[in-house]
């Protein structure tokens, strides 16, 4: 039985990862390209130049193809919380449900309503109303990101809530604190800026291809100017708020930060590993080196985590086994306390049922002393509190590495555009084309950091994934996993087929 539960949880996790990663192939392009299209159309309306209209329509066609599959892969994300994570849904629905509903009311309807005008309204709506609609689609898509990221931010950093022992759930205490928590704000700013970046790379990649093929050169060059400006600005933002994110992670999810940098033993003047190969045999608590090869920059991690290069940054071992000198309570100790919380909660429930008021009060008092460690009570070994280190580390380094490389590309493109020499540097067009794919790699890697790095928690410190899932036979989840795998892969192939064809056809004559 225990094994079956574990299988269910792991298949549910696999399914969530699969569907989320598929969904995230399409969403960042929607977020960014919607704005680029709005820029293009604004230029058209301002100048009245028909070639800008043609350009707008071309990118809009690609936007539509991508948008449809984004919607298709998205609906499952909303309902999956209920189907596969029903305990989670009950335990935090009071907080988590609200942003999802707000998203539906304020964001999805904007997108859905104005999308039809954007695509089929060139003749039916006035020029200005059409432009307005295009902007509304862009704003609507980005607003929908706000609310789902508020929800995600709350899972990473659960604020403004209290546990209700009678209902066995967490309840919201302050909506604004949930909506405006720093984690939510950073999630939003980093996600949108990195998505604008990705969309800029997409536009530059396809434009670069046109230049290499000597087709639609004017359109390609115009698109590249706008995209490189947006790309450059958003690279700056992404790096800035990525750094802010890391700063907050250092304080709210120190285990994630330690995994991102493969730091096992906490230290002052902690270095950043600029490049490294993780030692696969390394386990928490042993004496093996963490890396096989590494290039470090001393003090940088301390600077990033505490804005002070000499400060102390805790490592995985400190967080697992505790470090009394640094006043760090480890997972080991928290598990012991958490087990008391779990047991007292059960006693409280039983006493209540039996009408034993005094017993219930006593149990509740003890529960309250230990409730902050409730989630740890469901773990068995302190090492279970450690996320997969190698995956988190590599994903983080790939993202940051690419995040450092992209602005260089944007700068080169902008520079050559201004000087009018873009066509002469075919290598640059080739790099742009390659970056189209690298943008997706960076973006997916970002979510791997955020989500793998917070395992085993569905809600940081409060609810491990193992307790969050639905009690359903593993076979059922396995079946839906494979259905999604085939379905989404099939649709992705179709999408790429259509996209490639439209790029071949190019803008309307």
């Amino acid at each position, binding site marked *: 039985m225990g094994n079956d539960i574990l299988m269910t949880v792991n298949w549910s996790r696999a399914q969530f990862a699969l569907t989320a990663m598929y969904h995230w192939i399409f969403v960042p392009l929607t977020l960014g390209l919607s704005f680029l299209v709005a820029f293009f159309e604004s230029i058209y309306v301002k100048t009245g130049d028909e070639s800008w209209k043609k350009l707008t329509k071309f990118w809009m066609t690609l936007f539509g193809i991508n*948008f449809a599959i984004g919607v298709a892969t998205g609906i499952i994300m909303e309902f999956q919380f209920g189907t596969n994570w029903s*305990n989670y*849904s009950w335990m935090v629905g009071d907080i988590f449900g609200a942003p999802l509903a707000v998203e539906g009311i304020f964001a999805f309807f904007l997108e859905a309503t104005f999308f039809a005008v954007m695509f089929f309204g060139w003749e039916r709506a006035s020029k200005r109303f059409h432009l307005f609609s295009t902007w509304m689609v862009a704003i609507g898509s980005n607003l929908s990101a706000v609310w789902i990221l508020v929800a995600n931010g709350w899972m990473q950093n659960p604020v403004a809530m209290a546990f*209700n022992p009678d209902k066995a759930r967490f*309840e919201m205490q302050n909506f604004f604190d949930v909506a405006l928590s720093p984690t939510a704000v950073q999630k939003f700013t980093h996600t949108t800026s990195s998505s604008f970046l990705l969309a800029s790379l997409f536009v530059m990649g396809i434009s670069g291809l046109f230049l290499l093929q000597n087709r639609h050169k004017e359109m390609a060059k115009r698109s590249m100017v706008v995209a490189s400006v947006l790309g450059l600005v958003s690279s700056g933002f992404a790096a800035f708020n990525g750094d802010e994110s890391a700063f907050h992670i250092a304080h709210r999810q120190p285990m994630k930060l330690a995994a991102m940098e493969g730091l096992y033993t906490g230290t002052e003047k902690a270095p950043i590993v600029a490049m490294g190969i993780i030692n696969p045999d390394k386990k928490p608590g042993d004496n093996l080196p963490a890396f096989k090869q590494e290039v470090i920059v001393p003090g940088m991690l301390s600077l990033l985590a505490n804005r002070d290069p000499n400060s102390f940054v805790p490592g995985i071992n400190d967080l697992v086994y505790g470090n009394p000198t640094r006043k760090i309570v480890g997972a080991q100790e928290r598990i012991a306390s958490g087990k008391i919380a779990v047991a007292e909660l059960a006693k409280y429930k039983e006493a209540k049922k039996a009408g034993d008021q005094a017993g219930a009060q006593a149990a509740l008092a003890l529960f309250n002393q230990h409730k902050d460690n409730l989630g740890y009570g469901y773990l068995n070994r302190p090492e279970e509190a450690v996320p997969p280190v190698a995956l988190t580390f590599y994903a983080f380094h790939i993202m940051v590495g690419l995040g450092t490389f992209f602005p260089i590309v944007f700068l080169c493109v902008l520079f050559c555009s201004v000087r009018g020499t873009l066509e002469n540097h075919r290598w640059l067009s080739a790099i742009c084309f390659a970056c189209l794919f690298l943008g997706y790699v960076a973006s997916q890697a970002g979510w791997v950091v955020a989500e793998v790095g917070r395992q085993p928690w569905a809600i940081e410190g409060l609810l491990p994934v193992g307790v969050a899932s639905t*009690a359903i036979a593993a076979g059922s989840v396995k079946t839906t996993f494979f259905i999604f795998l085939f379905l989404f892969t099939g649709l992705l192939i179709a999408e790429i087929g259509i996209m490639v064809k439209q790029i071949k056809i190019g803008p309307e004559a």
Partner: protein
Amino acid sequence: MIGNLDITVLQQLWWLIASVVGSLFLMLTFVQGGQTLIFTLPASEEEKSLIVNAMGRKWELTFTTLVLFGGALFAAFPLFYATSFGGAYWVWMLILFTFVLQAVSYEYRKKPNNVLGARTYEIFMFLNGSVGILLIGAAVGTFFTGSRFSLGTYNQVTWGTPYHGLEAALNYFNVAFGLFLVFLARTLGALYLVNHVNHEALVARARKASLINLALSLPFLLTVLYGLLTMPGFAVDPATGVVSLEQGKYLHNLLGMPIVLVLLLVGLVSVVWGVVATALLNKNRGIWFGGLGTVLVGLAVFSLAGYHGTAFYPSLTDLQSSLTIYNASSSKFTLTVMSYVALGVPFVLAYVAYVWRVMDSKQLTLAELTTGEDARKMY
């Protein structure tokens, strides 16, 4: 101000809001209904494209309303969201699959190099309009017929059958409800076409189709009504929250809430009038009566399930695990916050209506599909 309301009032208010969204969804299933007409109604590929494009302007609205329905239930009645979606796993999954298929079908059907071929995407649309709606109907049917589940101490759901919700399709009432919704959607789809496209022959056939589909829906409607009036229902004692079986419960609800009886009757008459006006009197605006009538009928159905001391998601295995709008809801704080959020809904409705008018002021023609400025993007 909303903060001063009693939690029971908020719970009732949120059941009403969820009911309105659910009923609007039922009205908007004219899109799904239209999707099931594409193999029989048109006489040529061009006519088929007209239908697809007419529906294609609106499919996202229906889809988004479904998503909002899910979101609203999650926020206001999380225990229902957790219990039903987690428990009746397979029903919901199958419904979702059909909506996944729908979401790509419009955009990809006519695009060159679409790998699967236009026909496949048309079949996807058909599946969404038939299987998808049938299962939604069956799922709503369980609001009255109940499901086999129980809730643990911490409210975790344990489902009593290995079919995880598919067993709902074995109950005559649920199936009748589902088939009624399918034919109602087809009726509405035909009514919408009459009003929205400019093509004499196709419109003439759509007029006839609206009548035929209404007639086909009638036996299922009667089965549902008969079932509702005679079946035992799940009553909740307001003081203790204890759930018990009550003979003729839904009949009592109807008589106890005359407004619901009025909603139901006016709704049904309105749908019938919409069809009669369209099919027999050659009017074009029957869809408005059909749509409004559907909303009223939907409201009546949800009211019967949730109000008047009734458990809206009953458990057959353990009566006391049944969900009521009182035991399944969010906290007072969340319901209050959400009520403030809901104040934005009229604003949303206003711009949806405005855009609808802008886009539908002229009927869709074949010329627009083939030679219009947006021709390349047509579905």
